[in-house]
Each structure stands twice: as C-alpha cells, then as structure tokens.
C-alpha cells in the first residue's frame, strides 16, 4: 500500500501527486482540495497506480470547478496519461449542483393533496369503464369466466376462513371480557349477551373482516395485476382477443362480493361463540342461558345490516385493488407502492363507508 498524496508548491504553481490513486483506496477520501485556480502544472511522476476514479479525484482536488484543460501535465506514464485524458475530456459532466434539496412541507402537502385527487379521479374513471364492460357482458353473458371466478373464490373466501374465524372469535372473547368486567359491578351480567350480539353482528364482524380482506386479498390483487403488467401479460391477454376486464377484474370483484358476506356471517358466529365461552367462564352464564337470551335480544335486522354492508365494502376493495394494479408502472418500486396504497385506500374507504352507514341507518331509524 502506498497512500495517495498531493503536495502543492506555490512558487511554481505545481501540484505534485504521488502514491496509489485508486478509487477503492481509503486514503483517497482524505486528500484535501487545493485552492481553486492556484494550480497550473500537475506533476504525476510519483504516481504508482491510477484508475478513472482516482484520476477524477486528482483533477477535482487540483482544479475543483475550474477547467482541467488549462493544466499542464507532466511526469505521467503513457497508460496513466490515457486515463487522465479520458477523465479530463468528460470532466465537464461532473460539475454542477449535486442532489436537490428535499421538498419543503408545503410542497409535500401539495403533492399529497394532488395524489389523493388523482386517486379519486382514477377510481371514478375505473368505475365508469367497468360499468361499460358490465353492459357489454350483459349482452353476451356466455363470455363470463366461471373457472376464474371459482379459483378466485377459493383464494379470497375459502382460504380466508380460518383467519377470519379466529380473529372474530378472539375479538368476541376480548369484547365480552371487557364488558363483563363492567357489567359485573352492577350485577348486569346477562346484558353482556346483548352487547356482544349487537356489536359483533352489526359493527365488528363486517369492519374487521373487510379490513382483513383488504390487507389479504386487496394487496394480492394489486400485486398480481401490477406484476402481470410488468411482464406484459396484460398486453398479451388483450392481443389474444380477450378482455383484461373480463379475465382479471370481473371474476375478482364478483369473488369479493360473494366472499365478504359469507366471511362476515362466519365471523358473526365465531364472535358470538367467543362471547359465549367468556360468559360461561367469567360471568356464570351457562350456554343455554346465553342462547336463550341471544334468541330474545338479537334482532335479525342487526345481522342483515352487517351482511348488507359487506358487499359494499367488497365492491370498493375490489375496485381500488384492481385499479391500483392497472395503474402500476412497469417497475418493482411502483408495484410495491401501489400495493401499499391499495391497503391504505381500502381500509380508509371501509371506515368512511361504515361511518356513512351508521349515520344513514340512524336517520332511517334502523
């Protein structure tokens, strides 16, 4: 190892470089730049090794933003001279500002607002196109892809059952337990049944299942369609005379519309069962008492309201997920960003829609 050195002789305006000037040598970073405009002669007789990275550092340290063409070079061997000439010829490209300032708060806010606006417009555009495709399908119902619908229902509904049931069971347990702690103080144990039944069927099961499906299937749909776009599979589908809407979008959205109410119903059962287990162990309510009470307080309309929300959530999850998949650009980062965006948008949509449902249903007195 022969560390790179750079010495300046002010009397002759000569910079003398010596040692190994190679980009990987750690000593290279320690070279201090000489004052700009001071060097007129660059002497390289002491240089033992030189590569383009080292040559660039040598030039940058001697002339900084100046013109390396003005330098008089001396003492360089022929191969080193060739590398140095190559670097000097292209040195102009390396001048100028490096790396912009990160955008300020206001700019970020503006960009964020613009992104939200674009997503909304994009979603509306997507819904319009999809409506036209539905009409086209109505005229030729035979073109529907039943096999694809079956495959999608398998992944979106059947494979999600264990997870949905387990989550709602645990939520039923926690909910009944926390309510039981309060109810016990007033000797109102039996009302836990009312609370669990209403909360699970009307709010918890639809919202939690929708969020679960948004994270699980929504992300999968965006990632899959986005990757198909990267590999030009979507173009291939169109070229083969098939409609990407028919092959990709409609089966997925219908599978979601079918899957979500069914999952919500299973979630209702699991959540109430969770409440039943806690009621027996903590509140001394026997299963038969629980079921008896359930029978008298759980109005069918609560269950229907919960089940009616599910397809609305499903439609939005499907629309957002398919649209973000098609909106992906042809690179890995874009697919990743859109997948994240799908999950965020779907969950926000589910929560907003649920709030709208609550207000409207209250207004209608249901």
């Amino acid at each position, binding site marked *: 190892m022969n560390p790179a050195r750079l010495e300046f002789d002010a009397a002759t305006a000569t910079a003398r470089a010596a040692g190994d000037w190679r980009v990987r040598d750690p000593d290279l970073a320690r070279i201090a730049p000489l004052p700009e405009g001071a060097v007129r002669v660059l002497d390289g007789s002491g240089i033992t090794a030189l590569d*383009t990275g080292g040559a*660039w550092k040598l030039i940058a340290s001697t002339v900084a933003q100046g013109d390396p063409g003005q330098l008089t070079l001396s003492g360089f061997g022929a191969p080193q001279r060739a590398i140095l000439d190559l670097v000097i010829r292209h040195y102009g490209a*390396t001048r100028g500002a490096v790396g912009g300032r990160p955008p300020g708060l206001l700019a970020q806010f503006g960009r964020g607002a613009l992104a939200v606006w674009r997503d909304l417009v994009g979603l509306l555009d997507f819904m319009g196109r999809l409506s036209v495709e539905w009409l086209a399908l109505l005229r030729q119902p035979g073109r529907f892809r039943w096999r694809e619908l079956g495959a999608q229902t398998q992944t979106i509904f059947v494979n999600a059952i264990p997870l949905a049931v387990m989550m709602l069971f645990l939520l039923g347990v926690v909910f009944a337990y926390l309510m039981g702690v309060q109810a016990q103080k007033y000797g109102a144990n039996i009302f836990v049944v009312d609370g669990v039944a209403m909360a699970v069927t009307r709010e918890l099961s639809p919202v939690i299942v929708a969020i679960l499906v948004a994270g699980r299937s929504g992300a999968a749909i965006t990632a899959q369609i986005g990757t198909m776009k990267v590999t030009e599979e979507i173009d291939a589908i169109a070229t083969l005379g098939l409609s990407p809407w028919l092959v990709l979008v409609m089966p997925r959205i219908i599978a979601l519309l079918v899957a979500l109410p069914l999952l919500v119903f299973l979630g209702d059962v699991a959540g109430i069962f969770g409440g039943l287990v806690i009621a027996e162990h903590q509140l001394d309510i026997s299963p038969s008492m629980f079921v008896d009470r359930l029978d008298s307080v759980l109005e069918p309309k609560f269950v229907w309201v919960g089940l009616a929300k599910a397809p609305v959530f499903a439609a939005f999850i499907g629309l957002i997920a398919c649209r973000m998949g098609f909106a992906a650009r042809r690179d890995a*980062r874009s697919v990743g960003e859109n997948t994240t965006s799908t999950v965020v948008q779907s969950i926000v949509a589910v929560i907003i829609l649920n709030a709208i449902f609550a207000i409207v249903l209250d207004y209608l007195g249901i």
Partner: protein
Amino acid sequence: MASETVLDVRDLATTLGGKTIHRGVTLSVARGEVVALIGGSGSGKSVLLREIIGLIRPAAGTITLLGEPVWPLLPERMARLRQRFGVLFQDGALFSSLTVEQNVATPLREHTRLAPADCLRLARLKLALVGLPADAAGKMPSELSGGMRKRVALARALALDPELLFLDEPTSGLDPVSARAFDRLLRLLADSLGLTVFLVTHDLDTLLSITDRAIVLADGRVLGAGTLDALKRIDDAWLAAYLSARANEGR
C-alpha cells in the same frame, strides 16, 4: 505482466435439478483480453458465468479469479473480490427506486470512503464515459430506452474501476445500430482502461467486431477456443451453422 491469467476454470462440473450441465469445463483468460463465451441455448453459458462470479456453486472443479479460488471462499474475502470485478446483467438489473446517477453511485457509496456528493459527481463521470447525455443522470431507469439502460448498467459495473468485467448478453434486446454502438463502446473502454472483458453472447457481430478470442461451449464441455479462423476449422454441426448464420442472412 504479459499474459498473466486472471480467470482460470479447471474441470468444472455442474448438476442443477438432477440435470448435468457441465462435465469438465476448462478455460482460462489472460489479462487485457476480450473473450466471448458462445454456445447454443441451454448449453450452460449463463450458469458458467454465475458460477465464476460466485452466485451458483459448482459440483466439482476449481475456479480461480484474480488469483483467488472462488469456491470455497469466505464471505468477507468474496466481498472484497467482488469489488475487483464488475458484472453487467442481461436486462441491466438497475434499481428501479433509484435515479440513474444514484444507481451508479451505489457501489461507490458502499465500497469507498468518498463523500456522498463526490460519489454522485464520479457517477456522472462514468455516465459520460459510457456516452450518456448529462440530462440522463437525474432520470429514473423506467424513463430510459433499452440501449440507455444497458449503458447505465455498464457505468455501474465500471463504478469501482474493476480489473475484470463480466457481461451477460450485452447486446440482446438492442436494435442493430445501438448494438454496434455498444460494441464499439465496450472495445474503446476495454482498450483505454486496460480492462479484461469476459462476455457471454449470441450476437455474431459482437463476436466478429470486438473480441480477441472466443470459447465455444457445447455438450457440457469446451469444444474449442481461439480466433474466428481457428473456430472455423472445428468440425461441429452447431458451430458451423452458427458461424454461417450471418452469411445466410445476407442472401
């Protein structure tokens, strides 16, 4: 320094998924050479390249790269060895989340102690060396054409001033004009920077215009090596068809 061996492969055998790919490949490359590895589809060219750069482990045989045995090699020594050679992958393999200049600056930031601003400036120098316009530096890889992407990938492969450059199908997917321009660029850089270049190619024009020597891989072995005239004397149906492919195209 003349004819110092930088790459030496001896009796290499490879089995992937129960299929024998190489049965005794032996070849060597001297410093400063531009050598092409040719062979039919499925002859194991890309696999051989991946074994040489330490991505796939061969079943038997030795690979010596820049004086170091590649298999087995301790991870930290392999990491140091990897800084001494550059690889250009078939589709460029640029990082899609980084701009062009950040892509080229990545190896510099990881393996040198230069300041971040210096890394970016040096990246711009490399981009200029491979003939890209200055306004390309701030673009994202997805905004570039295939030929420009290859050039960026070449700039990244050259970032650490490697002694040895590996190229996998450097001109595939390029139109003939861009491909020839890329060939000329490779030869120019190889000559001016004193690089040793080892490339896997199908492109007969690349073979004819820039390489010093070609190695033919067939049937899991090295069928022959040498200049084009030497290859023409080898009696092999595939090779004869390959070398006459261009003559037929002209008619």
